[in-house]
C-alpha cells in the first residue's frame, strides 16, 4: 500500500525541488528518496556518544565483511578446476555476476574507503561549521545528503552493489541472491552425501600391504594355472595323435569293408544265378517226372479204346453202342463204336496167332467192320439196316460174340498153362451163350431196344475184361521184342494179378 502510494505520488504530484535526486547505478533512472529527514535530524541532533559509537561499530563490521568477501573472491578461481558435477554451474552463474560487480565495486571501494575516512573527518568538521553559519532549511538538506551518501557507501562496500539502486533493481538482485543461496545449499547437500558415502567406503579401502599380498597370491595361482594348461595341452596332443591313428585304422578298415562288400555282391549274384539254374532244373525234373508217371500209368490200348458207359449205353472211345426209344443214336456213332470194338478184338486175337485158332475172323474197317465165319461167309457189322431186314447184321453181332467167347476161352487156357489157380483163371463177367449175353439177346429182330442196348453194354464190359487180361499178360511189343517179353513173363504174371483185381472192382462199380 505504501509502495502503491509512493508510485501514485511519483506520477501525480510534482517532485519537491528541495529533495535531493540520485541516479540508479543499475538502470540509470533518476530517483529520489523521501522520509529520510527524520532520521537525519535524529542523527545530528542526538549528541549522545552511544549513538555515535554504534554507528562506528556498524562501519567497522562493514569493513570486516568487505575484507572477508575479498578473500572469498580470491579463492574461487582456484576451486573451479577441482570442482565436479553440479557445483560448477551455479558457481559459474554466481561468478559471472559477482565478477562484474566485483570489478566495479572494487575500484569504487578503494576510493570510497579513503574517501570515506577523509570525508568522515572532513565532513564532520564541515558540517559543524556550516551548520553554525547556514539557516535551518539549508542545514537539513545537507545533512540528508551526507547521511544518504554515507549509507550508500557502506551498503556498496558491504554488498558489492553500486548504490543507490531503485527498489525494483534491488528486488531483482535479492531474488538472484536467493537462488544462489539455494544452489549453494544444494551443492552442500550433495557434498555431504558424497562425503558420507566416501567415509563409508573408506573402511573398504585396500592398503598397499594387502594389495601386495593379494597380488602375490594371484601370481602364484597364475603360475599353477600355467602348469595345468601345459599339462592339458600335452594331454590334448596325445589324444589328437590317438585320433589320427584311429583315423588311419578306420581308413584301412573301410578299404577292407569295401572289398568284403564287393565279394558279397559277387557271391549274391552267383547265388541268385545258381538258384535260378537249380529252380529251372528242378522244374524240368518235376515236369519230366510227372510226364513219366503219367505215361507209366497209361496203357496204349486202354488209352486208344477206353470202354465205359453213359447211362444205359455202353461206350467205347466215347462212341455209344445201342439205341433207345427216347435217345436215337446216329448210325455213324454206332458204326464207329462197332468199328473200335472190332479193331480191339482183332488186335488181341491177331497178337496171339498162331497159338490162338482165329477161326471166326474180324475184318476191322473203321466204321465199316465185317466178320467172316468158318464157312468164309462175310457179314457186314455196320448200318444203316432195316429192322425188318437185319438178318445179316444180327448174324454179324452173333459172330462177334462167338469170337469174344473164343478169345476168353483161350485166355482161360493160357492161365491154366501158367499154373494159375482155377478160381483166379480168366472168366468173363457176363456169360455168353450163342446170341445171348447174360440172357439178353444181341439181335435186333424181334427184340426191344432196351434189351438190345443192355446186351451191347454187357458185351463191351466183357471186352474190357478181355482187354485188361491182355494188357496184364502181354507187353504188346513187336515181334522182335518177343524174346524179352517171354523173359519178363513172371513179372507180368504178378502184374496181371493186381490188374485183374482192379479190373474186376472197377467193372463191378
Amino acid at each position, binding site marked *: 500500500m*505504501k509502495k502503491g502510494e509512493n508510485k501514485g505520488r511519483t506520477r501525480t504530484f510534482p*517532485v519537491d525541488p528541495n529533495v*535531493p535526486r*540520485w*541516479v540508479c547505478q543499475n538502470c*540509470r*533512472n*533518476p530517483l529520489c*528518496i523521501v*522520509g529520510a529527514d527524520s532520521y537525519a535530524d535524529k542523527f545530528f541532533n542526538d549528541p549522545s556518544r552511544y549513538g555515535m559509537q554504534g554507528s562506528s561499530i556498524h562501519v567497522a563490521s562493514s569493513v570486516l565483511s568487505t575484507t572477508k568477501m575479498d578473500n572469498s573472491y580470491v579463492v574461487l578461481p582456484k*576451486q573451479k578446476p577441482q570442482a565436479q558435477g553440479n*557445483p560448477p554451474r551455479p558457481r559459474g552463474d*554466481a561468478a559471472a555476476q559477482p565478477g562484474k560487480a566485483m570489478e566495479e565495486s572494487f575500484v569504487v571501494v578503494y576510493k570510497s574507503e579513503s574517501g570515506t575516512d577523509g570525508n568522515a573527518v572532513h565532513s564532520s568538521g*564541515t558540517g559543524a561549521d556550516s551548520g553554525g553559519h547556514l539557516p535551518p532549511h539549508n542545514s537539513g538538506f545537507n545533512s540528508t545528503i551526507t547521511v544518504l*551518501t554515507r549509507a550508500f557507501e557502506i*551498503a556498496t562496500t*558491504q*554488498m558489492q*552493489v553500486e548504490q543507490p539502486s531503485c*527498489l525494483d533493481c*534491488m*528486488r531483482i538482485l535479492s531474488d538472484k*541472491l536467493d537462488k544462489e*543461496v539455494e544452489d*549453494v545449499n544444494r551443492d552442500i547437500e550433495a*557434498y555431504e552425501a558424497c562425503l558420507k558415502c566416501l567415509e563409508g567406503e573408506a573402511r573398504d*579401502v*585396500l592398503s598397499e600391504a594387502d594389495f601386495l599380498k*593379494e*597380488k602375490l597370491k*594371484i601370481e602364484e*595361482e*597364475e603360475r599353477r594355472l600355467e602348469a*595345468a594348461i601345459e599339462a*592339458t595341452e600335452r594331454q590334448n596332443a596325445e*589324444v589328437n595323435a590317438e*585320433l589320427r591313428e*584311429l583315423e588311419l585304422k*578306420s581308413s584301412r*578298415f573301410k578299404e577292407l*569293408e569295401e572289398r*568284403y562288400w564287393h*565279394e*558279397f555282391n559277387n*557271391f549274391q549274384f*552267383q547265388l541268385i544265378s545258381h538258384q535260378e539254374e*537249380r529252380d529251372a532244373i528242378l522244374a*524240368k525234373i518235376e515236369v519230366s517226372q510227372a510226364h513219366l508217371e503219367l*505215361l*507209366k500209368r497209361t496203357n496204349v490200348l486202354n488209352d*486208344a479204346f477206353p470202354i465205359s458207359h453213359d447211362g444205359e449205353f455202353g461206350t467205347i472211345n466215347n462212341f455209344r453202342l445201342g439205341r433207345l426209344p427216347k435217345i436215337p443214336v446216329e448210325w455213324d456213332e454206332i458204326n464207329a463204336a462197332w468199328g*473200335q470194338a472190332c479193331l480191339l478184338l482183332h*488186335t488181341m486175337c491177331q497178337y496171339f496167332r498162331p497159338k490162338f485158332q482165329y477161326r471166326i475172323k474180324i475184318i476191322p*474197317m*473203321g*466204321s*465199316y467192320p465185317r466178320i467172316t465165319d468158318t464157312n468164309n461167309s462175310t457179314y457186314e457189322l455196320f448200318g444203316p439196316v432195316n429192322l425188318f431186314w437185319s438178318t445179316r447184321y444180327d448174324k454179324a453181332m452173333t459172330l462177334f460174340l462167338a469170337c469174344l467167347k473164343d478169345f476168353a476161352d483161350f485166355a482161360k487156357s493160357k492161365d491154366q498153362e501158367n499154373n494159375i489157380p482155377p478160381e483166379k483163371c480168366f472168366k468173363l463177367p457176363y456169360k455168353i451163350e450163342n446170341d445171348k449175353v447174360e440172357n439178353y439177346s444181341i439181335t435186333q429182330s424181334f427184340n426191344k431196344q432196351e434189351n438190345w442196348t443192355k446186351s451191347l453194354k454187357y458185351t463191351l464190359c466183357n471186352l474190357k475184361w478181355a482187354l485188361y487180361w491182355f494188357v496184364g499178360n502181354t507187353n*504188346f*511189343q*513187336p515181334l522182335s521184342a518177343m524174346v524179352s517179353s517171354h523173359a519178363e513173363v513172371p513179372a507180368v504174371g504178378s502184374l496181371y494179378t493186381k490188374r485183374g483185381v482192379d479190373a474186376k472192382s472197377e467193372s463191378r462199380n
Partner: protein
Amino acid sequence: MEPPSQIVSLRTTTTDPDHVKVIQWDDFQHDLARLASLSSALHEANEKKRNLQHKLESLIQVNAESLGRLNELEEMRQKLESKKMLMENMSICSRLAKEEASKQEEQLSGAVQSLLVSGGALSVTSRNLQESSRLLSEENGYVHLRKLQKMLRKRQQYMTSQISMLYPVKILVGPAQEQELEAYPLGSLAGTSAGLKPINQGSLTIHGLHLNVLSFRKMSFFTDKKEIQNSATALGYVAHAVSLIASYLQVPLRYPLRLGASHSYIIDNAPSTELTSSEASSNANINAKHVKFPLFLEGQDTTRAAYAVFLLNKDLEQLLNFIDAKTLGPRHVLANLRELLRTIQSSAFIDNLI
C-alpha cells in the same frame, strides 16, 4: 572536498524530471537489509561448501588410489579367470576328444569283429555254394534230369511201338505188283488203265489199307465205294494214331482232331478269311469261330476233304518238327506217319537229348 563533490555529482545527475521515481526511505532500508542478509547467508554457505570440498578431495584421492589397486587386482583376477576358462575349455576339448577316441575305437573294434565274422560266413557260404553247384551239375541236377528224360523218352518210345503195333504202316510188296512196278512207271499207268489204278496207287498201307488221295479229286460214278470206305478208314486210323502220339509227346496239335473212326473231322480254329466266307456261303450252320473239315468224302464235294487231308499232314509235320525230323512233303501222309513212328523208335530219339 573534491571526492565528495565528485561522488555527489555522479550519483545526483538528473536526466528527466518527469520519470523520477520516489522511494520511501523505510522501504529502501527494508530491501537493503534483506539484500545484506542474503549476502551474508551466501557467504556462509560458500565457506561451508569450501570446507566440504577439501575433505571430499582428500577422500576422493584416497579412494582413487584404492580403486586403482582394486582395478589392478581385478585385471589380474580377470586374466587369471580367462586363463582358467581357457584351461577348462582345453580340458573339456581333451575329454571330449578322449571320449570320441574311445567311442571310435570301440566302434572300429566292433566293426572289425563284425567284418571278420561276416567274412568267415561269406567264405563258408561261398564254399557251400560251390559244392551245391557241383552237385547241381552232377547227381542232383543235370545228371538226374538227363536220366529222367532218357527214361521218359524210352517210355515214349515203348508206347509209340505199341501204336505202330496197333496201326502198322507197311509197304505192300507182292510178286505181281512188284513186276508191274518194274515194267511200267507209276505215272504212265495212272493215265492209261482204270483197272490197274487201285493196285498201283501208293505202295504204303496202314493196317493193310491203301490211302488213295487222288480218288478224292476225281470223284465219278465209276469210283469204287469200297475204295472210298478204305480211304476214309485209313484216314481215321491216321487221325487216331496222330492223336495218340501227340498226347504222349504232350504236343498240342495246331489242328485238333475229332475222331469218328471212318467219319473223323479235323478242326481249323483260325481259318483264313477267304475260306470262312466261302464256307459261310456254302454252309450257314458252320460256327464262324472254327471250321471242321471231313477226313472222308461227303456227297459230291471233294475240296473240303482234300483240304482236311492237307491239314492232317500239317499236324504230322508239326510232330516231326517237334522231334527234329524232316517232313517228306505235303502230300505224303502215310510216308510222314511212317517217318514219325520210325524216328521215335530209333536210338537217336533217346541219344539226342538237348
